[in-house]
């Protein structure tokens, strides 16, 4: 039996877990190719026009899986991974959206409710409802999840060493260890972006490579442990309702306080609700902290040039700022 996992949204955070889980249960795991123009166009056609681009792309990937003859498509309903916090409403309604806008996929969806108290979502209770559909015993599910958890832990520990999610996923897929240590560049830039925006090269237009080419090292939220991030938000009276948005905000604060970070780039999708609030908070805070901050808003209209120009200008600016400050320090 083939189980399809769309290469979109939380694929970039939980794929090692889900892949090992289904493989241990004895199924073949199929995923989609990287996002491409055609796939996006297909996704746009079946989505509501105002919805954000990652969801449109997700729909495109589900369509792609339908063409690949899979038996089931895994679309988990992400509820919460912290007590009192949730996912964005679009994640919580994602299975419903897919079910009713892609009628072909209606009977092929595996949609367990995922809720947990930490980022680790391998609690067996989340996956038990799938046992009946897939015809596996609860015991088997439990032992498969144990291995899956290890795989995910390894993925996270590699991430926290400073590798990008994409590098780690590629390494884990091919089985080759990452030998190259992440190099330190002249400039350090903090990227505030959800994994599914940053590592989908179609959405972010390869910004990670663009920055690295210019001898800039980058940091993102998934390179930090969850408790490091949770500590950042302790002073806030009421934190946001969305866990991943909280992570972004937390890492934003971390970047603001970190003297080694020279600038912050916030990459957000057009119409992203949670980001509209985070963006405003960061805009106000970055003035207080005197840290350069830029927002790049992307959607399905892919003009690479605007990104190139804006990133170049931003980098030139902070480069000059840094050179000046080094010179001043030397004179003194």
């Amino acid at each position, binding site marked *: 039996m083939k189980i399809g996992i769309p290469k979109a949204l939380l694929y970039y955070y939980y794929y090692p877990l889900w892949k090992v889980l289904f493989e241990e249960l004895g199924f073949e795991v199929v995923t989609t190719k990287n996002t491409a123009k055609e796939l996006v166009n297909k996704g746009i056609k079946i*989505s*509501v026009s*105002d*919805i*954000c681009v990652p969801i449109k792309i997700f729909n495109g990937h589900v369509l792609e899986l339908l063409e690949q003859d899979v038996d089931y498509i895994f679309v988990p*309903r992400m*509820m919460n991974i912290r007590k*009192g*916090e*949730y*996912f*964005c*409403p*679009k994640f*919580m*309604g994602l*299975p*419903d*959206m897919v079910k*009713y*806008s892609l*009628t072909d996929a209606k009977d092929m969806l595996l949609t367990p*409710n995922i809720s947990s108290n930490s980022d680790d979502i391998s609690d067996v209770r989340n996956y038990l409802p799938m046992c009946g559909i897939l015809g596996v015993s609860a015991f088997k599910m439990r032992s498969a999840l144990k291995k899956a958890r290890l795989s995910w832990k390894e993925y996270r520990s590699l991430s926290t060493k400073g590798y990008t999610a994409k590098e780690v996923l590629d390494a884990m897929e091919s089985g080759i260890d990452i030998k190259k240590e992440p190099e330190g560049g002249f400039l350090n830039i903090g990227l505030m972006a959800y994994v599914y925006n940053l590592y989908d090269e179609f959405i972010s237009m390869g910004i990670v490579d663009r920055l690295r080419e210019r001898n800039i090292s980058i940091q993102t939220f998934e390179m930090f442990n969850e408790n490091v991030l949770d500590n950042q938000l302790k002073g806030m*009276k*009421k934190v*946001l*309702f*969305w866990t991943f948005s909280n992570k972004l905000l937390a890492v934003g604060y971390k970047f603001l306080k970190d003297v080694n970070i020279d600038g912050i780039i916030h990459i957000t999708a*057009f*119409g*992203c*609700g*949670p*980001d*509209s*609030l985070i*963006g*405003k*908070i960061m805009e*106000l805070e970055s003035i207080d902290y005197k840290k350069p901050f830029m927002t790049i808003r992307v959607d399905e209209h892919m003009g690479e040039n605007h990104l190139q120009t804006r990133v170049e200008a931003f980098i030139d600016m902070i480069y000059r700022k840094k050179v000046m400050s080094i010179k001043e320090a030397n004179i003194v």
Partner: protein
Amino acid sequence: MKVSFPYMGTTVIYKKLLELLGHEVIEPPVPSQRTIDLGVKNSPEFACYPLKIILGSYIEAIELGATTLVTSGGHGPCRAGFYGETHSRILKNMGYDIDLIVFDAYKRDIMGTIKNVRKIMNGNSLFYLWETLRIVYLMAKSMDKMEKKIQKLRAYEVCYGDCNRAWEKVQKVFNDIKNIEDVKKAKIKSKSILDDIKVIKIPEPEKIRVGIVGEIYVVMEKSINLKIEEILGNMGAEVERSQYISEWIDYNLLPIWISKPHELEILKKGEKYIKEIIGGHAKQTVGHIVDYAERGFDGVVHLMPFACLPELVSQSIIPAITNEYNIPVITLPIDEQTGLANVQTRIEAFLDLIKNKKRIRIA
């Protein structure tokens, strides 16, 4: 302490609550183009529309002298729950020194709620607070009843604007309430006001009924949804909204076993399409569409602020419901582009389609 509140729907009710508790109330002006401009100018660009309007109406209230703002919070997962925090940050940044009292879900923050209640109580006894709440609740109930009637009558009024004038009068009558007896008197008085409206008699099968569903703020506040109820009413359609303030109180503030809210039934009807409560009113929206279809409504207007997170989910699902129940639904995203002609044209075309469909069915 001069108190004000966000402008939404029948504001007499909130005003009465604060007034009876002995506060000096500054009534925020009806949202106008200026309100919209003020809100839009000072809010994040991609924040949802209600956040911008409420900010605008806060600023106008502050200009009139308000020093304290009272509002309800939320428990997520949609952005509405974060309005309080965002508003107070923006207002502080603009240099206003105000006290923003946010009533969050009491289960989330019990101590905070008690503190807020004490501030609002203004030194009155608990018994007096209870009495006041009872008056306001009864008032909300009867005012909503009146409003529902007006929404039906407007389709058949002989003189254009009679219903609006009657509604103004009713609001004035309720504005003078001081105790429970007054509520009863106001009820009788406003009933007679409504009975005075001259209407055309139309045979039952020819009546057209349209439901309005969607996000609570754009559904309830007529000055920002381009007076959609009046547009529909003036074109000869009876209107019913999915949200009324008394129903909101029933569901959100009272224990469920006392109020037995209508909303629970609605949620059950939406269960098939959206399994979990995903924030905002997405599940209620789909539930209400099903409900209207079952009650034989002729069409539904779905309102949402542009890029509203939960309503986008319900918008994605609506085509499936339309197919299943054979009920026409039109979705109108609302934002600061207030082109009235566009909405009017679309609603007119929608009603034409409905009327045609109905004629074919009857024939």
